């Protein structure tokens, strides 16, 4: 990027160039790209599942029962004789949606909450963080059961419930970041330019606090997927015959001695997702860390 013409400048006017540059850098990071490709593939498969799945996900064959991988059923069948590959594909629809949407909710609330508390400091900070403390301390299970009873059972609520838990840690991380950033001279410079606190948080603080947030986010997605299984267990999440990776794994755990493939394959898919996310996350972090890029 040594020569820049006026036309490039005109590009620069549109939106933040940080993101454009980050994208460019990301596209040169192979593991990150591979991670991105895997995730895209998973999302695509999830979207196309109703058309590409080899079997009907609910169709049982009770006499067949659980069978190991075979030519007919590449990943084997579960105890109802249902095709595991199909189950995993349908499960991915739920898990990926929950994983990404709930994480996004948590990210949105957590980052804004933490950023505001950290930047404002003083009494506002104290009040906001005490609220976080309170939510941390409340008995989660009772809270979930109550949510379920008050609002009925639906997926939206699932996202809300998960988001409501995960944002707390996110807010704490963000706040710590912001507290150290707000001492920095460039923030002071922004104040002296006359920027409003919100503009400073948005333009100067958040982009510089993204590193740890991205790393934590990549860790949140898989834990959200597993949390969904627990909520489903309590009755809040998906209901059979629909399924999710978390549910497949928790059922697989029960029968890991008898039918190990029922644990292995869903676990493998989750692990692949996790590593893809991790590579993508690290790549994103590096891409956003303009200082680390020496090219």
């Amino acid at each position, binding site marked *: 990027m040594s020569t820049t013409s006026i036309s490039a400048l005109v590009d620069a006017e549109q939106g933040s160039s940080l993101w454009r540059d980050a994208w460019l850098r990301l596209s040169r990071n192979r593991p990150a790209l591979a991670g991105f490709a895997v995730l895209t593939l998973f999302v695509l498969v999830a979207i196309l599942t109703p058309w590409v799945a080899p079997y009907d996900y609910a169709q049982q064959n009770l006499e067949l029962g659980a069978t190991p991988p075979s030519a007919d059923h590449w990943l084997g069948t579960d105890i109802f004789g249902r095709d595991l590959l199909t189950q995993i594909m349908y499960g991915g629809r739920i898990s990926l949606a929950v994983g990404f949407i709930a994480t996004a909710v948590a990210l949105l609330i957590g980052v804004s909450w933490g950023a505001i508390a950290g930047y404002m400091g003083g009494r506002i900070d104290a009040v906001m963080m005490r609220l976080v403390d309170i939510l941390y301390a409340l008995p989660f299970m009772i809270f979930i059961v109550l949510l379920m009873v008050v609002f009925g059972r639906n997926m939206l609520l699932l996202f809300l419930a998960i988001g409501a838990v995960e944002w707390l840690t996110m807010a704490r991380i963000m706040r710590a970041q912001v507290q150290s950033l707000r001492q920095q001279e460039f923030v002071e410079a922004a104040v002296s330019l006359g920027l409003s606190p919100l503009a400073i948080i948005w333009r100067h603080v958040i982009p510089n606090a993204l590193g740890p947030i991205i790393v934590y986010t990549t860790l949140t997605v898989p834990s959200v997927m597993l949390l969904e299984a627990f909520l489903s267990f309590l009755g809040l999440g998906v209901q059979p015959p629909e399924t999710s990776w978390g549910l497949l*794994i928790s059922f697989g*755990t029960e029968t*890991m001695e008898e039918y190990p493939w029922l644990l292995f394959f869903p676990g493998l898919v989750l692990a692949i997702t996790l590593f893809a996310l991790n590579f993508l996350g690290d790549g994103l972090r590096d891409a956003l860390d303009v200082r680390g890029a020496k090219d």
Partner: protein
Amino acid sequence: MWRFIGSRLLQAIPVLLVVITVTFFLVRVAPGGPFSSEKAVIPEVKAALEAQYRLDRPVLEQYIAYLGDLIRGDLGPSFKYPGRSVNELIGAGFPVTAELALYALLVALLIGVGAGVVASLRPNTAQDYIPMSAAMIGICIPSLLLGPLLILVFGIYLDWLPVSGWGDMPGDKILPAITLGAVYAAYIARLSRAGMLEVMTQDYIRTARAKGIPEWRVVVVHGLRGGLTPVVAFLGPAFAGLLSGSFVVETIFQVPGLGRFYVQAAFNRDYTMILGATVFLSSLIVVFNLLSDVLNAWMNPRLRSRAGQNT
């Protein structure tokens, strides 16, 4: 420092009060009372039961009475275990959970710091990738899966360790501690790696090297102290998390800890036990977060007194 501790404890009071209040009403709003059971309960019996637990009085009166008891340190009688007080149940379960959490934390520190430091010494080599990938898996493998896996391998196939129990047979504390500590080991590994990477580029490490002292001493004496600062900051929340998150491990390994009582209480709508455990655990969380901050300050001389800072 004492002022700081005092003000933090003072701040905790309203937090706890809100937690108590919300929980108090939350459990009462939640469907299914403590006495509902599969076989229909005769109305007279139900009335008698409710009277014994003050449930027949107006909710507000119950609330005030509860707060009154709480101030006297009385958490009330358990609904699930007639004849036992919540104080007694916590007294029975907490020492076990605390012991389990402590071992888990030791496991987590041992594995986590070890892996993190080893990884940080040669970043972006196999020596870094292997422990860090293991840590990634560690973070995401639920104890619901790790526990049974460890039991199968070490308890059943190899027959080295007991599959359950706590203090009943030699070695029965090992697997629960590892299972519970695994997630935290992974977090600590990441934290200590990042911390060490940061510290080992500091000027004072160069100073230490210039003194000609051996590399291990540079890492251990000069590097660790600063590199583990984020780990120390994490210890409080981690210990609190271990204490309140041990339920799954306690269930899998048949450990008679507080977590089992707590979750059973939630399932059974044991109002007093839910409340008691919540109050107890959230007080602990406050205390451990505070301890962690104090420890952090103590580890870092600059924070012990901030008078040395430039104006």
